[in-house]
């Protein structure tokens, strides 16, 4: 499903060149739930962003769903993200100007789904994360856990094959964190969604199929 070979990522600023990722090799099978762990600044988020096509590797091979992605242009990347990938971020990144339902509809918009089916799909997704009653609230009117659940609904509304979660529990207390993890496991088991999750929390990591550990941009386990 996801295949990284000899991936390097360097950031260039004025003078300094920072090596963020070094020679990463990683394969994730369909339906697998993998967590990435490591101290701050070790490159976890960079790695996730590369897989999510939000950033491009400096060199190495990246294949998603069997196809090489290096040569894709902006439009192709956009449509792949739209159809095959779902994102959950640590700080939720909900659009504050839009109501819950409108936030969840965003991926479908770029898929040109019509109004009525779009609403139905969005409601189903919200139902799935237990927020059917908050459809017409604005994000700021919700608690952190609820906001993250909206974000998950948004990530799954397009039924992506791969779900990428960047510290989805990082801004939440442990009870809410548990709720979120339950939802992710439910998705993984029932829908067979491949999930890659960056986390700090050993407890949550242990519940996943496999743990990848990074240190200073290198893979250590």
């Amino acid at each position, binding site marked *: 499903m996801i295949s990284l070979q000899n991936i390097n990522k360097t950031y260039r600023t004025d003078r300094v060149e920072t090596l963020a990722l070094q020679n990463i090799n990683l394969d994730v099978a369909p339906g697998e739930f993998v967590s990435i762990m490591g101290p701050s600044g070790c490159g976890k988020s960079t790695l996730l962003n590369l897989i999510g096509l939000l950033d491009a590797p400096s060199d190495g091979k990246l294949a998603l769903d069997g196809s090489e992605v290096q040569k894709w242009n902006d439009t192709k990347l956009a449509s792949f*993200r739209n159809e095959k990938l779902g994102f959950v971020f640590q700080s939720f*990144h909900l659009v504050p*100007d839009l109501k819950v339902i409108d936030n969840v509809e*965003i991926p479908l918009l770029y898929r040109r789904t019509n109004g009525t089916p779009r609403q139905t799909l969005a409601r189903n997704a919200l139902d799935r994360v237990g927020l059917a009653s908050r459809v017409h609230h604005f994000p700021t009117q919700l608690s952190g856990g609820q906001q993250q659940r909206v974000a998950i609904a948004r990530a799954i509304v397009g039924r992506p094959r791969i779900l990428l979660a960047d510290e989805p529990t990082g801004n939440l207390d442990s009870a809410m964190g548990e709720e979120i993890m339950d939802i992710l496991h439910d998705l993984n088991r029932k829908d067979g969604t491949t999930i890659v999750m960056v986390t700090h929390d050993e407890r949550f990591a242990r519940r996943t199929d496999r743990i990848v550990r990074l240190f200073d941009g290198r893979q250590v386990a």
Partner: protein
Amino acid sequence: MLANYIKTALKVLRRRKFFTFISLFGISFTLVVLMVAVAMLDNVFSPRQPESRFDHVLGVHTVGLYGPHFGMTTNPGYGFINQYVRGLKDVENMSLFTTSSPLTMYHEGRKIDTHLRRTDGAYWQILDFKFLEGGPFTEEDNRNANFVAVITDEMRRTLFNGQSALGRTIELDGQRFRVIGVVPAVAITRNVGFSEVWAPVGTLKTREHEKRMIGDFGAIVLARSPRDFAAIRREFKERLANFVFEDPKNFDRVEAGLDTPFELVARNMIGNQYQGNRVLVLQAILVLMALLFVTLPTMNLVSINLSRILERASEIGVRKAFGASSVTLIGQFVVENVVLTLIGGAIGFVLSVLALSAVARLEIVPFAVFDVNLRIFGYGVLLSAAFGIISGVYPAWRMSRMQPVNALRGGVL
């Protein structure tokens, strides 16, 4: 998709009230200025009553005489028109008239400032005055020097309290005229149509004018179709090539043209020497002035837009992460901006109607009625949409180039 963009746009605008207010202030003010300018230009140049047929009409209003020491540009004289303009081929009808001269009349102990134009009979055939009462004088009236006059309804109001003027006598310029027709007032910007009182050329006090090459006259010719303009102009030019100079020591070159109203303004502003490019030059000047004026508002709107977009950097990141391509995003922001400018345009439109009526009340341009018609409304919509696109594209482009990762971090443009 578009409906959704618009929905989002309206939501964003409602929630960012201060930015919305600044943007709308700038946009509507800019459009008021542009619309007032367009309405005035339209008022001057577009064919409208009584000059409705002026898309088929060419006029001779200036003659330039040049010599080794000096040159001068004035109105043509009666003799010039008779000799060089009358009888051109391909011309359906032709009229000659004096410029409208400001005069004072004394009526029942009151002093009234007015304008008098003396014309021939054909004037009333080429121009389409809508007579409120009575009718025009004829070529026969002109030949027989009948002392008859047409006045405007404004004059009728001032002179006769708005009661029927037919058959009444007015005393003007030391002569007495019998009123035979009343027409609606004409804007002073209408070079040929404007006057307040019209009388036959034949009633001029002397026959001195008949041999003059320069003087106080003008002429128009009505072509069957604008396609004939070129041929008519060519023939006129050939005739001028044989111009007889009365005073060859001082003047040895003559310039005159058959002009459309726009060309006439170009000729007066830019001078005779530019020949064919005059119209282009004037157009370029007008466009340049508009662009110069629009620079500051555009920059203002662009920087506000950039700010608004930066504020929404994380939203852009999200949208990119969920599959929006750069093109889609540019589209979205341009649509947002166009929605904003159209709202500003609507406000601006209402304000310009008010501004125009204020201009009309101030009588900066006497007798002008700046009606806001469909065409001007169309210009307004066009102008605001163009303004919206111009000021929206650059910020949107900058934004769409932002790396999704940076955007999510609330990154730097």
